[in-house]
C-alpha cells in the first residue's frame, strides 16, 4: 500500500476497478453459462444421449426432415404419416423456431467439418439455450437493478428446477429456446425503455419475431408489454422513450409475426393480440394529448380537453359497441381454447376435455411450487419490495411480469416455466439487495478508521454473487473477511487505499442512513442467506439429477435387488419398425403418436398435436367400445395394429388404463352413445370385480388385460393395487402379436374379416362342433 497522488490514483483506480470488475463479471457469466449447461447433462450421464418424452420426438423428426430436405421443403411439408387419413401440413402448423435453430446449428457445425449427428445437436440444444437464457437474465436484471442483481439472478436462473425440467439435455422442445427468447425480448424492451433508442426497438421487434417463431407463449409478451405501457401511462410515466419502446414493436412485431405460417392472419384477427392494438391507439391518443398540452395554455387546454373528451367518448363507445358485437358473434369470443382456459381456469374442464386431459395443463399443487422454484418463493416478495425502492420503468415491468406469471402458473402447471425467470430475477434482486445492506452495515460497524462512501456507491460489485461460494468456505466469519470478500478480491487493495485517501465530508449522514443493523445481526443475516442459497443449490442439483432427468422412454426403478431398467417403449417401436409393412397404420392413444412416427416410422391415426378433436374422439370411442364396434371403427380407418400401454405388471401408473377415463370423455364428447356413467361404479373408476360390465367389456380393458391372469394366476394389477375384474376371456377380432418384456406395451393386430359366413348352428348331436362355437345368433359378417 504505497502512498500515491490522490487524484491520479482515484481516476486510475476507478478505471482499473471498472476494468477488473468487467473482467470478473464476464468470467462469472462464463461460469454461469457453464453451470447452466453442465447441470443439464445429468440425463446424458445417467441415461444416454437420447431424445426425451413425446413432443421432442416430433421436433427431432422435423429437424431431421429439415436437415435432409432444406428449408423450402420443410415449409411446404405435407406429412402423410400422421393423422391418417387427414394428414398434417407440418410447415404451416408448427412453430419453426426450435427446428430452424437446431437445423442452423447442425448446418454450421457440418460446414466447419464437425460431423455431429442431428440427434446430438438436438439433444444439446436445450442446455446451450439455457446458458443463453442465463445471460439474457443477467442483461434484463442489470437494466433494472445493476450488475450485482444481474449476476445473482443469472446464477439462480441457471439452476432453477422449473426451467431444468424443460431443458435437460434431450428435452428438445419449443420451451427450450422460447424461454431465452422471452427473457431476451423483455431485456430489449426494457433496454429500449431506458435508452429510447430506435436501434434497440428494432432489435426488440426481431427478438419478438424469434419468440413468435418458437412458441405459442409469445402471446404472453404481446399482452404483458401493452399492460406495462398502459400502467406507465396511467401512473403518469409517459415519455417519448415509452413511445419508442412500444410503437415499433407493435407495428414491426405484428408484421413479422404474420410471416410465421402458423400465426399468419391470427396476428391481427384473434383476441389474444387485441390488447396490443388497443394500447397502441391509446398510446397515440396520449402522445397527441401531451403534444397539444405543450402547445396550448392550461386554460385553453382544459376547454379543448372537455370538448375532445365528450366527442371522443361518444365515438369510443360506438366503436367499442361495434367491436363487442363483432367479437361476441363468434362462439369462442375470438379466443382460442387454450387462452380461454387461462382466463377462466374452469373452462377447459367444462368444455374441452382434450386440453384438460393433459397433465401439464392441470393447475399446480402447492408442493410443486416448492419443488420447482424452492426458496425463490420466499425471496420473491422481498424482490418486489426492493423493486419499489425506487420504482423505475424497468422495475415496474419486472413486478408486472411476476404478478401476471404467478397468476398463469396457478392456472396451468406448465406455465410455471414462465414464472421461473420472473421469480429468479426478483429473487436475484432481493438477494443482491440483502447482501448489499448486510455487508454495508457490517462494514460501517468497523473501527472508525474505515469509511464507507465508495462502498456505498460501488457496493454492487461483480463480486456480490460470488460471495456466496467464497464465504461458505471461510467458516468463521470475521468482519474483516466478510468485508474483503464483499468487495471482490482483485480490487481489494486498491480500494482500501482509495478509501483512506478519499475520505469525504458526506460520511456522517451516510453512516446514519446506511448503518441500520448491528454487526452481529448482519453477520447472522449473511450466514442465513448463504445457508439459504446453499440449500437452494443442493435442491437444484438434486432435482436436476434425480427428478427431471429421466427421459421417460426409458424407465428405471430401484429395489433391493438393484437397478431395473424398463426399455419397453423402444422395444415395441423397434418391433413395429422391423415387423410391419411400411404403410401399415398403427392406432394408439394420442400420447404415443409422435413416438410411433419418429421411432417406428409407421403411420398413426392421432398424435400429440391434438388439432382434430373428432379424430381423437374416434379413437377414444373405439377404445371404449366393445370389441366388435371397435374393430369396425379401426377397420374403417385402415388400422392394422393397435398399441396399448399397460403398467399393471410392473406398477407403471401413467398407462392407458389410468388415462382411459379421458378417452371416454373425449369420445363421449363427439359420440354421445359413449357415456361416462357407464364406466363408473358409484362415481368410482375401477377395473376390479366392482367394475361395470361396460368397462370390463371395452376394448381397452381387453387389450390391456388379455392373458394377464397367466402372469401370476390371480390377475393382480400392481398399478391399481387390486385384482382385476375379468380374468379369463378371449379376443375375437384382435390377436396379440407382440408384448414387451415387462408387458408395458402390447401390440395387437386386427384380424381380417372372416372368409366365410357361418350358418346358424342347429346340430345338437354334434358335440365337437358345438363346443367350439356358441351364440352366433344372427348374421354377423365380422365373426
Amino acid at each position: 500500500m504505497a502512498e500515491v497522488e490522490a487524484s491520479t490514483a482515484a481516476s486510475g483506480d476507478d478505471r482499473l476497478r471498472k476494468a477488473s470488475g468487467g473482467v470478473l463479471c464476464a468470467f462469472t457469466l462464463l461460469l454461469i453459462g457453464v453451470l447452466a449447461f453442465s447441470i443439464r447433462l445429468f440425463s446424458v450421464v445417467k441415461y444416454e444421449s437420447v431424445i426425451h418424452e413425446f413432443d421432442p420426438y416430433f421436433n427431432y423428426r422435423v429437424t431431421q426432415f429439415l436437415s435432409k430436405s432444406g428449408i423450402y421443403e420443410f415449409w411446404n411439408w405435407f406429412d402423410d404419416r400422421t393423422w391418417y387419413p387427414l394428414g398434417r401440413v407440418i410447415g404451416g402448423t408448427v412453430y419453426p423456431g426450435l427446428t430452424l435453430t437446431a437445423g442452423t446449428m447442425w448446418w454450421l457445425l457440418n460446414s466447419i467439418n464437425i460431423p455431429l449427428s442431428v440427434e446430438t445437436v438436438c439433444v444439446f440444444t436445450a442446455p446451450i439455450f439455457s446458458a443463453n437464457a442465463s445471460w439474457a437474465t443477467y442483461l434484463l436484471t442489470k437494466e433494472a437493478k445493476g450488475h450485482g442483481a444481474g449476476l445473482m439472478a443469472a446464477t439462480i436462473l441457471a439452476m432453477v428446477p422449473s426451467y431444468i425440467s424443460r431443458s435437460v439435455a434431450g428435452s428438445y422442445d419449443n420451451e427450450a429456446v422460447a424461454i431465452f427468447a422471452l427473457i431476451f425480448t423483455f431485456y430489449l424492451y426494457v433496454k429500449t425503455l431506458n435508452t429510447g433508442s430506435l436501434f434497440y426497438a428494432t432489435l426488440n421487434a426481431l427478438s419478438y419475431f424469434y419468440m413468435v417463431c418458437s412458441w405459442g407463449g409469445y402471446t404472453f409478451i404481446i399482452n404483458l408489454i401493452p399492460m406495462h405501457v398502459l400502467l406507465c401511462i396511467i401512473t403518469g410515466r409517459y415519455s417519448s422513450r415509452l413511445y419508442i419502446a412500444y410503437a415499433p414493436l407493435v407495428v414491426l412485431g405484428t408484421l413479422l409475426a404474420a410471416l410465421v405460417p402458423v400465426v399468419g392472419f391470427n396476428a391481427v384477427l384473434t383476441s389474444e393480440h387485441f390488447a396490443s392494438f388497443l394500447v397502441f391507439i391509446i398510446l397515440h391518443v396520449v402522445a397527441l394529448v401531451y403534444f397539444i398540452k405543450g402547445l396550448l395554455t392550461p386554460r385553453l387546454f382544459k376547454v379543448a380537453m372537455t370538448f375532445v373528451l365528450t366527442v371522443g367518448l361518444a365515438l369510443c363507445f360506438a366503436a367499442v359497441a361495434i367491436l363487442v358485437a363483432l367479437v361476441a358473434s363468434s362462439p369462442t369470443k375470438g379466443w382460442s381454447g387454450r387462452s380461454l382456459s387461462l382466463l377462466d381456469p374452469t373452462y377447459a374442464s367444462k368444455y374441452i376435455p382434450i386440453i384438460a386431459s393433459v397433465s401439464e395443463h392441470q393447475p399446480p399443487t402447492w408442493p410443486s411450487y416448492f419443488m420447482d422454484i424452492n426458496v425463490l418463493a420466499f425471496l420473491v416478495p422481498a424482490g418486489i419490495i426492493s423493486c419499489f425502492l425506487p420504482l423505475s420503468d424497468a422495475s415496474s415491468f419486472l413486478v408486472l411480469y411476476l404478478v401476471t406469471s404467478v397468476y398463469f402458473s396457478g392456472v396451468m402447471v406448465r406455465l410455471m416455466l414462465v414464472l421461473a425467470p420472473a421469480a429468479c430475477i426478483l429473487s436475484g434482486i432481493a438477494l443482491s439487495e440483502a447482501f448489499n445492506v448486510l455487508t454495508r452495515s457490517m462494514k460501517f460497524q468497523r473501527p472508525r478508521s474505515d469509511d464507507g462512501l465508495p462502498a456505498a456507491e460501488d457496493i454492487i460489485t461483480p463480486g456480490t454473487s460470488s460471495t456466496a461460494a467464497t464465504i461458505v468456505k471461510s467458516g468463521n466469519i470475521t468482519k474483516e473477511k466478510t468485508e474483503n470478500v464483499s468487495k471482490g478480491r482483485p480490487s481489494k487493495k486498491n480500494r482500501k487505499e482509495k478509501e483512506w485517501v478519499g475520505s469525504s465530508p458526506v460520511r456522517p449522514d451516510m453512516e446514519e442512513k446506511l448503518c441500520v443493523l448491528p454487526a452481529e445481526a448482519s453477520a447472522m443475516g449473511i450466514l442465513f442467506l448463504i445457508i439459504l442459497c446453499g440449500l437452494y443449490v443442493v435442491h437444484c442439483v438434486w432435482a436436476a439429477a434425480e427428478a427431471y432427468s429421466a427421459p421417460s422412454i426409458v424407465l428405471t426403478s430401484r429395489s433391493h435387488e438393484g437397478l431395473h431398467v424398463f426399455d419397453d417403449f423402444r422395444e415395441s417401436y423397434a418391433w413395429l419398425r422391423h415387423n410391419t409393412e411400411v404403410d401399415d397404420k398403427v392406432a394408439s392413444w394420442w400420447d404415443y403418436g409422435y413416438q410411433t412416427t419418429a421411432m417406428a416410422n409407421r403411420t398413426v391415426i392421432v398424435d400429440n398435436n391434438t388439432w382434430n378433436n373428432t379424430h381423437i374422439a374416434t379413437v377414444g370411442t373405439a377404445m371404449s367400445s366393445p370389441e366388435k364396434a371397435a374393430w369396425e371403427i379401426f377397420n374403417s380407418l385402415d388400422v392394422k395394429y393397435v398399441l396399448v400401454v399397460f403398467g399393471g405388471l410392473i406398477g407403471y401408473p401413467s398407462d392407458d388404463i389410468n388415462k382411459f377415463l379421458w378417452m371416454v370423455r373425449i369420445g363421449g364428447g363427439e359420440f354421445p352413445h359413449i357415456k361416462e356413467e357407464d364406466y363408473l361404479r358409484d362415481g368410482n373408476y375401477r377395473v376390479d370385480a366392482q367394475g361395470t360390465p361396460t368397462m370390463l367389456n371395452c376394448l381397452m380393458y381387453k387389450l390391456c388385460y388379455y392373458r394377464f391372469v397367466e402372469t401370476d394366476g390371480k390377475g393382480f394389477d400392481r398399478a391399481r393395487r387390486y385384482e382385476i375384474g375379468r380374468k379369463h376371456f378371449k379376443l375375437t377380432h384382435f390377436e396379440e402379436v407382440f408384448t414387451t418384456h415387462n408387458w408395458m406395451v402390447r401390440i395387437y393386430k386386427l384380424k381380417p374379416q372372416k372368409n366365410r359366413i357361418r350358418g346358424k348352428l342347429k346340430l345338437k348331436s354334434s358335440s365337437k362342433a358345438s363346443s367350439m362355437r356358441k351364440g352366433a345368433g344372427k348374421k354377423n359378417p365380422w365373426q
Partner: protein
Amino acid sequence: MAALRLLLLLAAAMLLVVASRGDASGAAPRGRKLLVLVDDLAVRSSHSAFFGSLQARGLDLEFRLADDPKLSLHRYGQYLYDGLVLFAPSTPRFGGSVDQNAVLEFIDAGHDMILAADSSASDLIRGIATECGIEFDEDPEAMVIDHINYASTEVEGDHTLIAGDDLIQSDVILGSKKIEAPVLFRGIGHAVNPSNSLVLKVLSASPSAYSANPKTKLASPPSLTGSGISLVSIMQARNNARVLISGSLDLFSNRLLKSGVKKAGSKTRHEKSGNEQFVTETSKWVFHERGHLKAVNVAHHKVGETNEPSMYRINDDLEYSVEIYEWSGTSWKPYVADDVQIQFYMMSPYVLKNMSTDKKGLYSTSFKVPDVYGVFQFKVEYQRLGYTGVSLAKQIPVRPYRHNEYERFITSAYPYYAASFSTMGAFFIFSFAYLYHK
C-alpha cells in the same frame, strides 16, 4: 397349344396355361388337380359321366376313399390339391389327417369344393356345410317332398324326386345357354340365411315343397317349407374360394343325368333332364373356369404426363386406368361392362365415377382431385353376382399448394398495392420536406 397343355397337365400340380400372346396372357386362376373323396368306390362308376366331363375339361382327378388312412390334403405346408369333390355324404370321419377343420382351412386357403349330401348325410358333412353358411334340415330322416312339382318319370309314390326349374338368373354361374329341362333332385333340403351375402341359392325348391320324413306321417309342421328350401347352393368366400353344396348326390349320378324327365302336370316331356348341363356349368363356375376376374396394370398420372407421381396436389387433373380380364377357361379375355366405378376415397368417396372401357379390357377415366388434402385412396370395389370380387385400393397423398403455387399478384388487390406504395412514397416526401424544408 393343346399339346403344350397336356404336357403341363402331366408334369405339374400347378398348371400354367400359356395363352396366346394376342390377348392378355397369364396363368390360370386355379390349378387343375382335384381330390375326389367317395364313400364307396362304386360312386366312381355310378357318377362317371360327371367325372368324365371334368376330366374332359382338363381336370386331373384323384379318387380316394373318404376313410383312407393315408389321406392328407397337404404336405410340407403345400396343398396337394387345388380342389375337392366331396361325394362321401355318409362318412362319419375322414381318414388320415383330414377332419372338418382341415377341409375348412383348405377352403380358407383359396381352394374350391363341391359337396354333395343326401339323406344319409353325416354330422361331419352337415358341419362343413354349416360352416359355409348352409343349414341342412336338422331332421336326419327328412327329405324334400313336393307333391306338385315332382318328376313323373318313375312310378314312385312319395314324390321325393323333384323336377326343379327355379334356377338362379345368372349367365356366369349357369352358362349362357339356358337350361330348358328341369333338374332332377332327390335328397335333403337346406336353408340359407338371406342376409348372408356370400351364399346364393342356385336351385330352389318350388313353393309347394317341404322337408319332412317321407316314411312317416307329418306330426308337426315341417321346419323348412316352400321356396325357402334351397336344393343346390353356392358360396363364394371372401378370398374367392368357391363351394357348391347340393343336398343330393344323385343329382350328379349317371342315372339322373341320362334320364328323361316329365314334370308332373306338365305336357312336355324332355328326352334328357337338365342335370348334365346343370352340373357341367356349375362345376365350371366352381373350378374357376368362368367368372374369374383379374385387375392388372393399375396406373394413374396427371393429365398430360405419363409418370406416376408419389403425391398429387389439390385440384390436379389426373387420369386413372386399370385393365380387367376374365378367365374364359383357356385364356384371359377382356372383361366388358359399363358399371366399373372408381372411388377417390378418404373416409368417404370424394369422387365416384363410372369408368369407360375400350372393350379390350382397359378401363380408364379422368377427374379433378378435390380441393381437400389428405391421404386418399384409389378404390375399385367391383362385386358382381357370380364374379370374383375385384377390390383394389391404392394409397395416394394429396398435398395442399406449396407457398409459391399461389397467385403472385391478385388483380382485385391492385388498389391495395397502389395504396401501400403511394403511402410509402408520400411518407418519404413528407419526411424529406419535414426534415429539410425550414
